[in-house]
């Protein structure tokens, strides 16, 4: 184990584990620097069959370096235009790793707006594909800043992505494809393996306590008897990360790019 790593590298490697139980040729949708690098680590260590897009139109035969790629020629292995994406989503063999603005205790996500729906205080992107993703595909989330504005009390302002809230479904039954996996933050890894899919602390990043996580979360977290520390990256994993992030964009994932182990 290396001891010289950043929080970003720790979180990337922790996030790569969301794909540990995936199907051998899952189509992974990786939006943002951390999800992409996490997917790349998974692909190059334990999931060589993972499929991914170039973010525009093509299925990429190998990862595409993060950031402006300039003249870098992507290696194509097929096409995955938007119309096909929606067909793939509905079929189901996909894992979407997304960065919503809010999440609640049900795993419901918001990407639309905050405040009064008719004239929102803050207008964001819109629901995008979150409604379809969340009832058809495995879903994991990333929050760069773990706080009560992001992990909110009650329900998110506009439920854009579905979650484990039986009151919102016909007959109270969850769609077969609803399958939330993990939430990666700057403090910890959460999963949905508490009672009735309640959100549970899966691991704590080095130097972070359960109390600190709970104090920064708007809903009650399930606390297992023993909470492991998030595993440190190996040199092999760190090498994969720097290979696909030659411009060190990962240093911008978290404010001030902190070290992986907090100074005590």
């Amino acid at each position: 184990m290396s001891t010289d790593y950043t929080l970003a590298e720790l979180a990337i490697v922790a996030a790569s584990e969301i794909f540990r139980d995936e199907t051998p040729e899952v189509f992974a949708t990786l939006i943002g620097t951390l999800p992409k690098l996490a997917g790349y680590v998974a692909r190059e260590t334990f999931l060589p069959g993972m499929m991914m897009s170039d973010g525009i139109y093509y299925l990429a035969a190998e990862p595409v370096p993060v950031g402006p790629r300039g003249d870098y020629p992507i290696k194509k292995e097929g096409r995955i235009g938007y119309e096909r994406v929606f067909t793939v989503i509905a079929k189901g063999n996909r894992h979407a790793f997304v960065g919503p603005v809010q999440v609640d205790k049900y795993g419901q996500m918001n990407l639309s707006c905050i405040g009064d729906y008719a004239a929102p205080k803050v207008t964001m992107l819109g629901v995008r594909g979150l409604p379809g993703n969340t009832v058809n595909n495995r879903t994991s989330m990333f929050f760069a800043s773990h706080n009560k504005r992001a992990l909110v009390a009650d329900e998110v302002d506009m439920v854009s992505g579905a979650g484990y809230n039986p009151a919102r479904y016909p007959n109270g039954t969850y769609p077969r494809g609803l399958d939330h996996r993990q939430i990666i933050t700057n403090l910890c890894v959460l999963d949905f393996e508490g009672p009735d899919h309640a959100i549970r602390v899966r691991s704590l990043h080095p130097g972070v306590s359960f109390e600190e996580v709970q104090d920064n979360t708007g809903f009650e977290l399930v606390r297992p008897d023993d909470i492991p520390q998030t595993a440190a990256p190996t040199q092999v994993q760190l090498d994969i990360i720097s290979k696909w992030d030659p411009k060190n964009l990962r240093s911008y994932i978290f404010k001030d790019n902190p070290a992986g182990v907090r100074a005590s």
Partner: protein
Amino acid sequence: MSQAVLDKRMSAADIVGQLQDGMTLGIGGWGARQKPMALIREIVKSDLKDLTIVSYGGCDVGMLASARKIKKLVFSFVSLDAIPLEAHFRRARSAGEFEVMEIDEGMFQLGLKAAAQNLDFLPCIAGLGTDVMTYNPHIKTIKSPYSEDHYVAMPAIKLDVALCHVSEADQRGNSWIGGPDMFFDEWFCRAADKAYLTCERLVETSAFNDDHKILRMPIERNLVAGVAEVPFGAHPTSCGPYYGFDVAHLKAYSATAKEGWEGYVSEFVEVDDYVKSVGGADHIRSLPLPAF
């Protein structure tokens, strides 16, 4: 027997002259890609009002919003891709300037496909469990006649007119999309009573006697009522393979959302030579294609 009009050439202004107040317009492309921006600029200049705009939205929506043309917006997102949030849309949406029908991206295309097939709806499960259903109470769920499953019955999104920008077209309305993703232009055209195209280049029909090109010709000519040749007609959005989106222009455009965009309109919309106003043909041709 009526005689087909097989010379459908017209100007961008002629196309917009066919539109009427209160119409429902579908706009092709996606975000900051392959948008019929020359037609959007003509609408901004026109007296048209109370439009329902159906779009995978980019600066088409932002400009129509700041020009106060929108009565209702049917959308999944509005984004400039390289600039994730569309400033003009955000301002207008937060001010409550228009009604919205906000739906999942997959529901959106099913709505167009239902309209294209003269169906009332197509079923899906996207939307279940979300506020898409809360804020769109006209969208119903149905029980499957074959199992205990419940589906969203996504209603047809019928369009009066579809507006799209393609790479090449002939005077009959045949067209070729040269960019990698053809997006949903086909389905906008099929969902509409009439479709109008702008194109980078007007070509002879013989240009389409080409097995490779034919793979990227999703819109048959009897869907198309008019064609206008407008080189660089998608700028400041991208039009692969010819040019990428103009990030510097989009940034400057975005900055006008707060203090008022009259200056933008006089500098880039109410102009005789748009291409010259934004830096010329060589500048647009040099814009790199999108990459993320």
